[in-house]
């Protein structure tokens, strides 16, 4: 297997992009990544998109978008794994380059969520849960995460205030991200006083509905310096794991087993431990999700994740900054694009190009992207290539 590097990243401003179509949003981000890498061709491309069909009535994205980019007839593959579609698209690109099937590969993600009303968007997102045995009964995604939160709160003493602290931290981080959808400071009081959605979760515990795309360019590490002027970032690990899709089928509803399994594989591949990480970009689709994820990644002990945001452990300047980009909470969550945007942030941080939100001396970065209530997780670890002793 060949070692793989990321040599280009692209993303546009996320938000409610009324004037832009699904294909336009994607093409902007893809062109930005190709231009950033400085390559004149792409040999294959992968597109993470959860539900082009339900959000804009458009499937067959591999062919459509390869042509939009002017790269036809290259193979274009659409990848779906609910909210982990972007991370999984990147993993397919890594495998293709590592296996020697292709040299220059574009990995991308897109979701156009505001062409439908809130009810239709909620329905499209709910298809990531068990339709017949969860959604049929009237549960929603905020409701499923609310039930996970209640287990964590009752078992470990996690407080309502600690959930709010995650939103406060990630919005503070997002203030420094010029592409974020919601660049605003929020207080714990505002979070706890926002509209109740599914007890104990409130509106400001939830990530938003977003239009957006992101893309990155990969190539073999040994070709990176020849192909691109950018400092290469090495893909040190790529891991994917699954779990039961229905929350009620899991033995422990407060344990993200797929994240735990993928993280263990990734740490082994990279030859590092959680202590070596400089920062993480994780899937904070709800405030409780970040708490569950950092425990599953081994950043804190089981049951201790609640205190991490409020204590400063996971804030900028803390021991292990989590979501320096602002996370899904502030940056936005166009579901298929989220996993790729996390990787873009990791690459910028490891190049030292993250501007005001730069994590000092960043060497190792981890991204964690999950689907549903955690039935799919993709974990990647990246290393600043020039920092590596050979």
């Amino acid at each position, binding site marked *: 297997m060949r070692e793989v590097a990321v040599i280009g990243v692209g993303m546009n401003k996320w938000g409610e992009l009324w004037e832009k179509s699904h294909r336009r949003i994607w093409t902007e981000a893809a062109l930005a990544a190709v231009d950033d890498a400085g390559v004149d061709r792409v040999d294959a491309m992968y597109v993470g998109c959860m539900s082009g069909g339900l959000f804009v009535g458009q499937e067959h994205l591999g062919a459509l978008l390869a042509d939009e980019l002017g790269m036809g007839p290259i193979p274009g593959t659409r990848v779906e794994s609910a909210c982990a579609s972007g991370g999984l698209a990147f993993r397919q690109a890594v495998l293709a380059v590592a296996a020697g099937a292709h040299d220059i590969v574009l990995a991308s993600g897109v979701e156009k969520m505001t062409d439908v009303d809130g*009810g239709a968007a*909620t*329905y499209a997102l*709910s298809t990531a849960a068990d339709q*017949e*045995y*969860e*959604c*049929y*009964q*009237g*549960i*929603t995604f*905020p*409701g499923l995460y*609310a*039930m*996970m939160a*209640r*287990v964590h709160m*009752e078992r470990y003493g996690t407080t309502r205030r600690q959930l709010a602290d995650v939103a406060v931290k990630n919005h503070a981080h997002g203030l420094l991200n010029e592409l974020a959808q919601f660049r605003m400071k929020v207080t714990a009081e505002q979070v706890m006083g926002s*509209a*109740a*959605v*599914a*007890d*104990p*979760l409130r509106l400001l515990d939830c990530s938003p509905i977003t239009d957006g795309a992101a893309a990155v360019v990969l190539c073999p590490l040994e070709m990176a310096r020849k192909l691109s002027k950018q400092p290469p970032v090495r893909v040190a690990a790529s891991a994917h794991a699954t779990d*039961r899709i*229905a*929350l*009620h*089928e899991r033995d422990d*509803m407060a344990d993200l087993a797929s994240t735990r399994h993928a993280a263990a594989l990734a740490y082994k591949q990279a030859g590092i431990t959680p202590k070596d990480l400089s920062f993480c970009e994780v899937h904070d689709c709800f405030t409780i999700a970040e708490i569950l994820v950092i425990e599953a990644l081994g950043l804190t002990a089981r049951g201790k994740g609640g205190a991490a945001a409020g204590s400063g452990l996971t804030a900028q300047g803390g021991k292990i900054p989590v979501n320096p980009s602002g996370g899904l909470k502030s940056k936005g969550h166009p579901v298929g694009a989220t996993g790729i945007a996390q990787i873009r942030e990791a690459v910028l941080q490891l190049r030292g190009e993250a501007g005001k939100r730069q994590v000092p001396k960043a060497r190792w970065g981890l991204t964690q992207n999950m689907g549903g209530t955690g039935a799919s997780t993709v974990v990647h670890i990246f290393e600043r290539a020039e920092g590596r002793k050979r």
Partner: protein
Amino acid sequence: MIGPVRYWREIPQRYRYEAARCSGCGKVFFPPRLVCNACRGREFKPVILPQAGTLETFTIIRVAPSGFEDQAPYAVGVVRLADSVKVTAQIVDCDLETLATGQKLRLEFRKVQQDGASGVLCYGYKFVPA
């Protein structure tokens, strides 16, 4: 959309609570499936879900999905039935303010929703305080 055929296919589970017990390791599956995810066994014996359960976790849905708007606020929980299968369902005829985990519940047959697009009346199981 919950069309008539898709609805009809689940009737053994929704009306009669039919489950399956793995002949190899004894694990119960609801709905029944072809392969046991614990021992990979492929032989099962039909069983009926017990109707007494305990509330393991729950939420109060304030922002309801389509088909449920006129029911909000309502409680949905994960209920552990007597022989350890857990199911997701609404908890009704209860006080939303005092509902608590650990509460003993009983399964009842109720109307669950009316699918707006297909017009199918959807029945199934909900829980009430025991």
